[in-house]
């Protein structure tokens, strides 16, 4: 039976989480080379979390597009277009879910930023360490964090003493590694649903509705002005719809590209994880 961990109420395979784990070496910042490698790994993690945050922000715009598109269809389909309530459309907002995921990503990103600073600027190490631990504890309180991560975060010492510096940094790194792996696993688990959400809004609920319009729905003179191609009016109506459907498909494709790029950013990080290095 495959071992699974719980991330934000979802069960994901531990192997998956491991493969997607953020690359943060376990040797501490004892040497210059190790410090550079750790700083680079933390930067990669930061990049992946930036990509995820950007994707979540883009997904936030989908609901507004949906409200406009459905309002548009309600108006053009209605027998009383000037009287139709174009605000009476399905609610596509996912704000509460996006807020929770963005909050978790921001906390882990902050820990990655502080770990990088800690490795790059030893003069400010104590301050960066404290800020990183605080960010980790913030994520620990989040519903996305697993019980296992909470234990790791609770065991993190709050300050960086000179005597045990390398060991404390190592524990911080392990905790960050785990937190980022959980967010990566959550991202991969949910990406198909986000893809489906985008498809639903731009294609299924909008572009498909445009296809049902017929010449009778158009003002012929205005249609002739809008479509320059030298064809009869029914063809112009088809071409007008084609143009609108293409615009919707392009909007959906742009968002899907962003989702894919976020997955690739997490995969790049996983590829540099100590367990996955050649």
């Amino acid at each position: 039976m495959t071992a699974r961990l719980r991330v934000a109420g979802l069960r994901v395979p531990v192997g998956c989480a491991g493969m997607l784990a953020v690359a943060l070496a376990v040797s501490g910042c004892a040497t210059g080379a190790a410090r550079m490698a750790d700083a680079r790994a933390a930067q990669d993690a930061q990049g992946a979390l930036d990509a995820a945050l950007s994707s979540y922000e883009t997904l936030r715009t989908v609901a507004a597009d949906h409200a406009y598109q459905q309002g548009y269809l309600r108006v053009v389909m209605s027998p009383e277009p000037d009287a139709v309530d174009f605000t009476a459309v399905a609610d596509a907002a996912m704000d509460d879910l996006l807020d929770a995921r963005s909050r978790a990503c921001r906390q882990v990103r902050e820990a990655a930023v502080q770990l990088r600073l800690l490795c790059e600027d030893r003069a400010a190490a104590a301050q960066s360490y404290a800020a990183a631990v605080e960010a980790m504890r913030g994520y620990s309180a989040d519903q996305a964090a697993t019980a296992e991560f909470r234990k790791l975060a609770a065991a993190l010492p709050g300050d960086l003493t000179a005597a045990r510096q390398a060991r404390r940094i190592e524990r911080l790194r392990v905790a960050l590694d785990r937190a980022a792996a959980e967010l990566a696993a959550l991202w991969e688990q949910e990406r198909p649903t986000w893809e489906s959400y985008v498809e639903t809004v731009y294609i299924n609920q909008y572009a498909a509705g445009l296809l049902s319009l017929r010449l009778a729905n158009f003002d012929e003179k205005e249609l002739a002005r809008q479509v320059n191609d030298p064809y009869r009016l029914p063809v112009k109506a088809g071409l007008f719809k084609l143009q609108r459907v293409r615009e919707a498909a392009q909007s959906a494709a742009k968002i899907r590209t962003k989702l894919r790029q976020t997955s690739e950013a997490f995969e790049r990080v996983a590829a540099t994880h100590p367990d996955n290095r050649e």
Partner: protein
Amino acid sequence: MAGPKTTLMQRTQAAIRAYNADRARLVREAAASGGPEAAAALEEEFQALCNAAFALQRAALKRNHRRYGALLAEAGEGVLEARRLMDEGATFLAVLDGMGKAVTLLGRALLLLGK
């Protein structure tokens, strides 16, 4: 084999596509037969179906709901029937009735899913 939640989502999406593919005709027919109110009622039922699709996606993002397989299957059957009516070019009244039943079943499922 797809689980009941996936099946329900697929059927809901298929019903939405089927309505949209014939949307202009259905709304025109509703208006001709029952006036603007009938056309508005049809469109509002469609928006309820769209809302259900989003609620299913929200539920998928929240958690797995293994306990409600039977209810999801029942809702899936309701949506399938609504889609059949659309595909067969049924009258707007039959489509309205079918969508109403499907939305009611979806609503019950989503209540239990803790939407």
